[in-house]
């Protein structure tokens, strides 16, 4: 949490109470016959108020469990956590009269010290790192999905490279779920079979998708029923008729001579085709296309020209694409991997060098590909940095939280024993 002007109220409150406590402690310390100690009334007051503050601070964790409850905004709680937690330190010191006490108390002191220290560390970190993060990582995303993004990057650039220089021979199984999610989001999956096709087009190791044509499926869906309903007498004549016909087709298939009557649609289409040869546009679709073509008369030629050049460039440097592919598979892909972090792309400058080299090697047509890969690598690198910062920003909690739990447990023990809630 960023400490700034908005904390004034909290600051004032806690300093005021601190001053109060200190003053009262001074008086009490002088007055007490045998010095300040936790057992005396004042000591107990300090102790109890101190531990109350501790408990409040501890409650933050509990409050996090029920984020939707409207028990004061999280912001309020965190501020309380920070300021009152800090305030508890002097109170506890006053409580123990700057003495150690017994073993249990010593443990308490130590854990308390650790908790406070870690807490302040965290606070300090939160002052600095967010800005650092913001400035250093324009490619920011939320941390939870970094692995996902890495894999999806991998998949996408797989796809990209595969389109450029042929199928890849890499293990795609680990990518599968991510790939599916990505494809779904990119709306590449119109029908069920699409996904296999997609994989098949990218990875040489992927299985060939099972071809399944829908109409036949439909037909099967319909045909079996009459057969099953054969014996029924009250069958509609149409059904009976269709049943017979089904029989007919069956045995005709058996005879091996496929005499399927042309469906009227096919007829229509064939006609349309003939019509087109006589180039009188039949369907509005054709019309529109024709018009469109007319509209941009010059365009297509240019486009085609481009197409041609692209094609040539793609055909001609075969081994070059192979080179790119190799580079991708060996260097880039592992780097994009969620975990891998090979050295030669680790550093910004290294990556620059490597890619520059590749650019020198490869023909101009492949440079955009390189650029794209480079961008991916850059993103991956930033993710790496981001994760590191994230660790710094949050891992102190692994000290702070468990130890504070210990602290609370010990505190409870201490309270029970010293207040003798249960005598033994």
């Amino acid at each position: 949490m960023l400490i700034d002007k908005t904390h004034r109220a909290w600051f004032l409150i806690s300093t005021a109470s601190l001053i109060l406590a200190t003053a009262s402690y001074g008086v009490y310390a002088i007055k007490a016959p045998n010095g300040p100690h936790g057992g005396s009334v004042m000591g107990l007051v300090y102790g109890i108020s101190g531990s109350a503050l501790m408990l409040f601070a501890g409650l933050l964790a509990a409050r996090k469990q029920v984020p939707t409850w409207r028990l004061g905004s999280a912001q309020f709680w965190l501020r309380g956590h920070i300021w009152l937690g800090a305030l508890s330190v002097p109170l506890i010191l006053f409580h123990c009269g700057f003495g150690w006490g017994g073993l249990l108390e010593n443990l308490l002191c130590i854990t308390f010290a650790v908790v406070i220290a870690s807490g302040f560390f965290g606070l300090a970190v939160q002052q600095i790192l967010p800005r650092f993060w913001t400035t250093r990582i324009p490619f920011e995303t939320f941390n939870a999905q970094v692995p996902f993004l890495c894999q999806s990057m991998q998949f996408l650039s797989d796809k990209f490279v595969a389109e450029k220089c042929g199928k890849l021979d890499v293990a795609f199984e680990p990518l599968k779920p991510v790939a599916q999610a990505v494809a779904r989001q990119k709306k590449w999956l119109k029908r069920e079979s699409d996904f296999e096709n997609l994989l098949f087009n990218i990875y040489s190791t992927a299985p060939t998708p099972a071809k399944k044509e829908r109409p036949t499926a439909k037909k099967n869906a319909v045909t079996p029923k009459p057969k099953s309903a054969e014996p029924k007498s009250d069958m509609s004549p149409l059904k009976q008729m269709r049943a017979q016909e089904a029989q007919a087709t069956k045995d005709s298939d058996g005879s091996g001579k496929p005499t399927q009557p042309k469906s009227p649609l096919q007829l229509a289409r064939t006609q349309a085709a003939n019509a087109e040869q006589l180039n009188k546009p039949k369907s509005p679709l054709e019309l529109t296309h024709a018009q469109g073509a007319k509209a941009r008369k010059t365009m297509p030629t240019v486009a085609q020209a481009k197409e041609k050049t692209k094609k040539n460039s793609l055909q001609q440097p075969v081994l070059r694409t192979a080179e790119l592919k190799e580079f991708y598979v060996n260097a880039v892909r592992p780097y994009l991997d969620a975990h891998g972090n090979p050295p030669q792309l680790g550093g910004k400058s290294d990556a620059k060098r490597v890619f520059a080299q590749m650019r020198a090697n490869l023909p101009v047509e492949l440079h955009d590909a390189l650029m794209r890969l480079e961008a991916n690598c850059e993103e991956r690198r930033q993710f790496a940095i981001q994760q590191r910062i994230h660790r710094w920003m949050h891992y102190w909690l692994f000290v702070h939280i468990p130890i504070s739990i210990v602290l609370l447990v010990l505190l409870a023990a201490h309270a029970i024993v010293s207040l003798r809630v249960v005598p033994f």
Partner: protein
Amino acid sequence: MKKSVMAMLPAELADVAEPLHREDELLTADELKSLSVFDELKKTPSFEKFPGFVVLRHGAEGRLMCSQGDAGATAFLILTTQDILKLRQGQVAVIRKILEARATGCSREKRHQYFDDLTKQELHDREQKLINEIGWLHERLQLFQSKDHVDDMSLRQVASANLLIDMDGNRPRRGLLHRLVSALSRHNVHTDASRPASIPIDGPADIDTETLHAPLFEGELFGEMSCMNRAPRSATVIVTRECYMLEIIRNVLDTLHNDHNYKKQMDQTYRQRVLKNHVRRMSIFEDLTDDEFARLEDSIELVDFDSGSLIFEEHEPSDCFYVVRSGLVKVVSNAWCQVHEMEFTDSLWNSICSELANVMQLISRACSPEIHDKLREFVDETTLTDQQKQTLLQALNDFILQPNIPKKLGRKTVEIVEAIGSEQVNAAVAGFPEATANWSDLERRTFYRLLLEHNCPTGMPRRAANAGPRRTLTYLGRGDFFGEIGMILGQPRSATCYAYDHPDGGYDQRIPDSRTGAVPSRVELVRIGKQEFHELLLSSQKLQHRVAQVVAKRQNRSEVKSTVSVTEISGVGIQSPEFERLGLIQGQQLMLIDLDRCTRCGACVEACVHSHDDGRTRLYLDGPRFDKYLVPLTCRKCLDPVCMIGCPVGAINRGDNGEILIRDWCIGCRICADQCPYGSIQMNELKNPVELSVEEKSLLGPDTQIKKVDERAVVCDLCSSLTSQDPSCVYACPHDAALRVDAREFFFEPVQERS
């Protein structure tokens, strides 16, 4: 006609239309014309132009006509038995003709577009087939006659429209703690406690919320919306009894719509079958007795509005209210154009007349003579009596309400612009269609109003100043209703409503609010007049009670929290292209994350997950940055929520809080998600996809695979379901990094209102 076709047809038909199979056939133009539907028409559509685009689908029992969420560009017309019988007989006749012609070997002229190409054998087969069928059709007809009218309908049902949704399945199992929590705190109340009795779909009938079925009868038409503006199929239609359906495309549909007779018939069916549902959806009518309702029903009239035309305008007295029968109604606030007395101050009154004087000649160009005369009367008035004031207002409004732009002023927008050289008008007119003829009512009125304001700088009240920027409150679809509260409470209209014709640049990429290539389509409304309503009110005790309730509720309901501050859109941000590109200005509840404070702890997301029953997040901390802020992916409560356009089942609408609300019967067509310009609506996988019920399965047969509903759209509801209506994400941010702001207040300093 051609234009319309262009606009309607997708890149390739295969994508959106069922592929044909062998039972389906194509009909010749004559055959089509012979059908009862068409020969009743005054002007039959020109079928000759598009052979192969009107398909006769044979619905074998259990055939899947269309499945919900799929793309669709066609409407289905279920042929009555009589029609099909007639058709078949005709065909048999034709075949016989052909056969004997062949036998005689003479006369090569075409008799039938398709049959001519068949071999003798095939023709015989077909004849045989047809004859069988005719026999069977006769049987059915007799069946109809024999039965009395009561279960006549049930007999005539040939298909059922099903909705594959799981209203309250797919709730994830939550941890013990969570369940404990939700048990303790009644925060996570389910919003859709008030479920409508029926879900409106793109068909003659609505779907019953309980059974999730709606019957389809012979002679009915469904899939209009898909056909007209490419909405995805709103329901899964399964044939329950052998029948024939005519799959038609837009131009045919249009002709049908334009035809008077057909329309009457349609209205009839609507009154019979749907009206009840739609009107009853309104809480006030829920517990009317049937005869009371019958009385209401008579007084109801069905009205149409062409797209872009205003239904009513803000501040008009509300004399009636409407229920949407079909089409889309856009509700906009701060969009009135007429002048109202409250806008006028004394100073204005004083100066208006004098100013009118020096613009008379322009006015004369800009309006019809009689209005011109009306206005002329006031030219050299110095002080106006209230009477005169009224008349003047009347005149001005007449001027503004003119139905068209006179040619004198200019045919094209550009001409107009140079005719009146004012950059204010300029700016306003910039986005308007090229030809003034195509201007919508709203546009025209805006223009006129501006014209006056421009010419009478001191006399005319400034609309923009008084109103502030326009806000699209919502889009209303089939079955929604509007204007009732105003009428009941006797308040003037609180917003402007106009028939919104959905702009349509193809299925995949829609460009909201750009009216290029729009096809004139129609919005059909049910109009319930004031006095009828009041008569009913006097008679019905229950209704009075209800109304009282509504009034009370309305009074103490917290007004929709959308503060429209009058802001000059001349702030620093607006110039920056970034601001434009990210569309921040749209945000009324724009979420921002202060990156200097955010520790990326993800508390906001957790809160989001926790505060929704389905345990899904609506918030993704990924997004573009705008100066030191991150603009995460979540609903920003747009000024113009285009996501609401064209939900096939009307499952997305605004809640009491002004939030976007996706109801339980979302069928997971990606429309809204695709529509949202800011990617705030995410399609979430359903853990257990919705399957067909057992009998439906049996009906469909074993290996017809039907696309499961495995997705649903999820959008931030601003935590309106919680008792405290503030977003949890902001509430749960410990580092006060998360903000929800109204962009127009946050990024621009508001300038104080000039009254």
